[in-house]
């Protein structure tokens, strides 16, 4: 090794394992980042809970509805009025039916701000029920013991 170093003026350490590991790390962080960014929104402050179940990923893409504290719903990244949600859900239902799935197969993830009105959360659930969605998940921030 010592002889080699004299011959080559550039780097002669074998970088391959380091680069492998680094790329693996990058890939890992990239995937975790993408996942969280799609779901988590800074406009929502979830209420906290200590016993909520870990988030499960189902094979069918869940429908995420985020309720802001002013009563607007974030749907596809855009705030829309709660009253207009029915039309968007109708679209969602049509897309599901076109794909050959019943709306009841999908889970509706309700990410509601802790300061929003309970009545609004119930309104969202009722709107979804009218379109045939019946599995709901109330998402909270998990505070482990």
């Amino acid at each position, binding site marked *: 090794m010592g002889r080699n170093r004299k011959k080559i003026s550039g780097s002669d350490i074998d970088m391959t394992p380091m680069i492998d590991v680094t790329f693996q790390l*990058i890939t890992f*962080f990239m995937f975790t980042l993408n996942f969280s960014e799609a779901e988590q929104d800074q406009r929502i402050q979830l209420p906290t809970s*200590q016993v909520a179940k*870990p988030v499960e990923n189902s094979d069918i893409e869940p429908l995420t509805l985020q309720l802001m504290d002013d009563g607007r719903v974030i749907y596809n990244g855009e705030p829309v009025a709660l009253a207009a949600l029915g039309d968007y859900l109708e679209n969602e239902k049509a897309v599901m039916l076109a794909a050959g799935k019943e709306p009841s197969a999908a889970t509706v993830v309700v990410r*509601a701000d802790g300061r929003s*009105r309970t*009545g609004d*959360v119930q309104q969202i659930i009722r709107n979804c029920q009218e379109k045939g969605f*019946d599995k709901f998940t109330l998402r909270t921030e998990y505070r482990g*013991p």
Partner: protein
Amino acid sequence: MAKRASKLAGKIPIDMTAMIDVVFQLLTFFMLTLKSVVVEGDFNIRMPLGASAGAAEDDPIPPLILKMTATPEGRLAAVQMGGKTIVGPDLLGELGSADALLEQAMAAGPGNQGAMKQARRAKELTAQKLTAALQAQIVDTFGNDLSRAELTELELDCDPGLKYDHVVSAITAASGILKGDEVVPLIQKIKFAPPKKAK
């Protein structure tokens, strides 16, 4: 360059420095952005439209009804279970002041992060107190037979104006007991009462 590459045949001929620089920059970036991710948890509720209209199908055990009323500001005014008030005025006052503190901090804007953090922490602690108080009452109704809880349905009858985090505290209290690191499941079937007509 070509001459040099041929001299080093068998070794790494490319200058890796630039690539490694970029790779490390990327790594740092992704690592730092990862920090802001919070762990989330779920509560599953299954509510088909038909069932929400009432009518306990073939459930022999009557549902446990938790009634939460709100002040005009959306704070918790009273909690009743089976017609009995179960949260004392002291705790309600504490909850109210924690809410007020947080609202103040929110109104002050993002400038004062310290006050915001403190208010949130206080809010969380009072919410945990509420959970503990509700849980004691819920466990009490089942006595020694906690297995009965899994068959029982909890119906949440809340004022529409009530702030949602109180409801989550109630759901937390009802759905499981924290024993050490483990969660002993309690009531699994949770639903909202059909809303009253008056808005």
